[in-house]
């Protein structure tokens, strides 16, 4: 049970199609300030179903599409973006009878708003189906296994009740 790769299409600073192959074990992501490292973290949170745009450092979902600029009329540039997470499921940690499972979540501009779509192995899915599969596998955007930039101290400072909930989630 692990990630095999990520695929981005016009997500935040990743223009066009980008594949991020991920090995088992310990992968370090590095680079200069502002290069796009935390945008990779945001992409994963996006697929896992982060409800809060604020957690993705976006005021609204349009900002997740490559090329979104403040105050521009945004006539040119991509009108959509998507992120795929490909999991190794040989141990069936996800309740699906397949050795490999791909979750794809995408946003399309629709007028002044956005529409979100979901694919499970390329087949139309829903936020609900993603949530069901992820939670059964113990994967949450707010899980103890994900620390966003600046938040590592939070784990030792969270309230006693919140910490108990984190333990209950695992139980």
């Amino acid at each position, binding site marked *: 049970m692990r990630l095999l790769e990520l695929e981005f299409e016009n997500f935040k600073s990743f223009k066009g199609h980008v594949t991020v192959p991920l090995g088992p*074990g310990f992968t370090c992501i590095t680079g200069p300030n502002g290069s796009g490292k935390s945008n990779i973290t945001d992409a994963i949170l996006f697929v896992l179903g982060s409800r809060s745009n604020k957690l993705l450092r976006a005021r609204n979902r349009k900002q997740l599409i490559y090329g979104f600029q403040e105050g521009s009329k945004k006539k040119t540039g991509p009108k959509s973006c998507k992120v795929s997470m490909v999991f190794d499921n040989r141990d069936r940690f996800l309740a699906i009878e397949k050795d490999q499972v791909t979750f794809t979540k995408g946003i399309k501009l629709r007028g002044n708003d956005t529409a979100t779509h979901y694919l499970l192995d390329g087949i139309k899915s829903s936020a609900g189906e993603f949530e069901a599969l992820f939670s059964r596998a113990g994967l949450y955007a707010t899980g103890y296994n994900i620390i966003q930039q600046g938040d590592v101290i939070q784990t030792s400072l969270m309230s006693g009740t919140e910490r108990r909930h984190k333990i209950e989630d*695992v*139980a």
Partner: protein
Amino acid sequence: KESKFMGVYNSISESFKTSFKEITGGGEAWLVLENEKSPFEGGVTIKARMPRKKLYPVEALSGGEKSLVSMAFIFAIQGYDPSPFYLLDEPDQNLDGVNTEHIGRAIALQSNFAQFLVVSLHHAALRESDNVIGVFMGDDGVSRLHQIIDVDTFLSSLPVEAEVG
């Protein structure tokens, strides 16, 4: 339900003692139930004592010390029930030179049992990892990735900066 929780809680509390002792080289840490008789009516508190120091309330600990407590807690839960992957964005932001080494090595050890994706600006993390992905942004404002094969060459090509301690 309560006995299930207590089983998990006790197991995590044990792992937490061990992982904190390892990360800090001798420190002691444990969990405490605020309400021992009815666990669900109270929260779970952390007590942590750094090596060669007395026991202080966890909020009094330094930024680096709190980071180590947080990491030990994460490893403790992993010990009980590993997550498919761990995604840590700059967990070593507060750490001095010695502690970035300790945490780099600790993550490397834990990564035998689970996949770790760690964003870091510290050399120790790069050296301990199995794989380094370099992210760069060109003047066109587009992010690009490079697999960094030779970590040492990559590191020596950068302006050397360092943490103290």
